[in-house]
């Protein structure tokens, strides 16, 4: 229905008015949920901490450099989260770890959602043989839990930040493409797409301008929940020694290192875990809130 006569000044204005009001109504519905708002505040807090981390601690001095004389000190005024077995400040490592977890989570989901949207929209829009081929491939990949695919890729490429990013990105593509495909299938036969097509709009434009904006809701929800999942997977792989390599301060590898001292220094395994749980919880709350806000019908 909309966008058929786009280009003229008047409809252009109407479009912005409409888009704004839709965003505003989503926000109004989102705001209603206290839990979703709590998640949002928690995430903003974590992002702010990650951004200002260099003001709170020195990366090289506090988080990386070994300082054996002060190793394994319990939390105190000087080191509020204590120090680890190399005498590094746990607080500094946690806040710099937030940078790694959040950025790897965001980046990998960004990459996988773009690839997923690309594959899903091509499959859904064109149908037929392309659809069949792409979706059978995705089915095969979906038959394995995504963490397996990620582990296989890490096994081939070796551990490290970039390889981990590649592994997690690829392993999330099948889910995204499935979701995108199904929402595109439900949209592509509606009248406004037919109208756009009868005006001679090119396929690429129809997909990018008309179909994807209408299918974006489920993609955003899946993306939010996927970042949460990615944070868990990054820390799990690093815990196994297959992810981010020491001495980089990653929460999962901090847990793996702290595990040897957990009998006497519990804080070494408690604190990084709480950091993971808090960020995952924030994203899960936001994801659930967005799902309800974007599609009020789903709420029971």
């Amino acid at each position, binding site marked *: 229905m909309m966008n058929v006569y786009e280009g003229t000044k008047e409809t252009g204005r109407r479009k912005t008015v409409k888009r704004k009001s839709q965003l505003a109504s989503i926000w109004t519905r989102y705001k209603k949920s206290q839990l979703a708002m709590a998640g949002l505040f928690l995430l903003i807090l974590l992002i702010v901490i990650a951004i200002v981390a260099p003001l709170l601690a020195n990366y090289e001095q506090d988080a990386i450099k070994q300082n054996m004389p002060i190793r394994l000190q319990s939390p105190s005024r000087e080191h509020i989260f204590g120090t680890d077995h190399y005498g590094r400040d746990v607080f500094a490592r946690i806040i710099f770890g937030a940078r790694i977890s959040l950025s790897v989570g965001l980046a990998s989901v960004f990459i996988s959602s773009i690839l997923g949207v690309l594959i899903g929209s091509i499959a859904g829009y064109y149908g037929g043989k392309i659809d069949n081929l792409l979706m059978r491939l995705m089915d095969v990949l979906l038959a394995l839990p995504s963490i397996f695919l990620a582990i296989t890729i890490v096994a081939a490429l070796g551990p490290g930040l970039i390889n981990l990013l590649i592994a997690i990105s690829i392993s999330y593509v099948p889910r995204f493409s499935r979701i995108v495909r199904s929402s595109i299938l439900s949209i592509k036969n509606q009248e406004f797409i037919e109208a756009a097509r009868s005006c001679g709009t090119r396929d690429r434009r129809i997909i990018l301008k008309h179909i994807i904006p209408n299918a974006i809701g489920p993609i955003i929800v899946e993306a939010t929940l996927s970042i949460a999942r990615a944070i868990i997977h990054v820390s799990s792989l690093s815990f196994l020694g297959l992810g981010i390599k020491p001495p980089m301060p990653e929460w999962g590898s901090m847990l793996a290192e702290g595990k040897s001292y957990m009998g006497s220094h519990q804080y070494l395994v408690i604190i990084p*875990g709480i950091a993971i749980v808090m960020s995952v919880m924030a994203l899960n709350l936001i994801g659930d809130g967005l799902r309800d806000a974007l599609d009020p019908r789903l709420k029971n």
Partner: protein
Amino acid sequence: MGKYIGKRILMMIPIILGISFIIFGILELTPGDPARNILGDSATNESVEALREEMGLNDPFLVKYFNYVKNALRGDFGTSYKSGLPVLEELKGRLPHSLKLALGSILIVTFLSIPVGIISAVKQYSFLDTVSLIGAFLLTSMPSFWFGIMMILFFALQLKILPATGVTTWKHFVLPSIAMAGLGIAVVVRMTRSSMLEVIRQDYIRTARAKGASESGVIIKHGLKNALLPIITVLGVEFGSMLGGGMIIESVFAIPGIGSMTVDAIRTSNTPLVIASITFSAIAISIINLIVDILYVYIDPRLKSNIKRAGS
């Protein structure tokens, strides 16, 4: 019915072949020379080259894959680079531990989550419902390995009532099974609750109550039976990922199962072992999916006529 099962088994073949092809392809990218790894740095280039030829490492990719599948069908998954034992032997030795762990977890998930989910649905918005939903939410936000570590801290180191590592008695499997069950509990509680909520609003539930059936009879016989399909589905998915997904939990609790073996194999670039164990997981998942599909028919006889119609 037999025809349906046969068809479903045939459908598993391309999926398993596809997965093994993809895994084989990805692991083909592994850097390093396995022949060099086996013989060590002191070996001459000629002997390394001879071993490469013998192992078929110089063949083109498709030939290698074809040979692999051919041998695998005869039960030969290659030999472990590290121990020199056949891969199948290594897997067999480790399978019992992984099976015990996965079975323990799925039992915990089933017998804890379904009752909790039912109570949550029947007493919606009650205190119990809120507690179970908060619990489920916490479990989904917690990495399983941290859940495991926290339990070791509390039950093994603090209270000293359960062992933290090892596999000698059933007690050793309690903590790892709970840790592995964590996420599954959350998923199944939520699914049971939402599925039951949908069912208990149906007219036939009201009819059953009106006839004077006892409340527990209504909930179990009329309610749960109709709500069971989606619950079985997620139970199947969870069991599948438990069977193959022991990598993290087995590492935390030092259980010598297939998962911890896979992690070791990845660390040491022991490719035949990696391929076999991931393919094994894929096969396990496919078999469980098949069992779930067959269970559907027993739970919901209406599906049987659908299958007959589609099959004939």
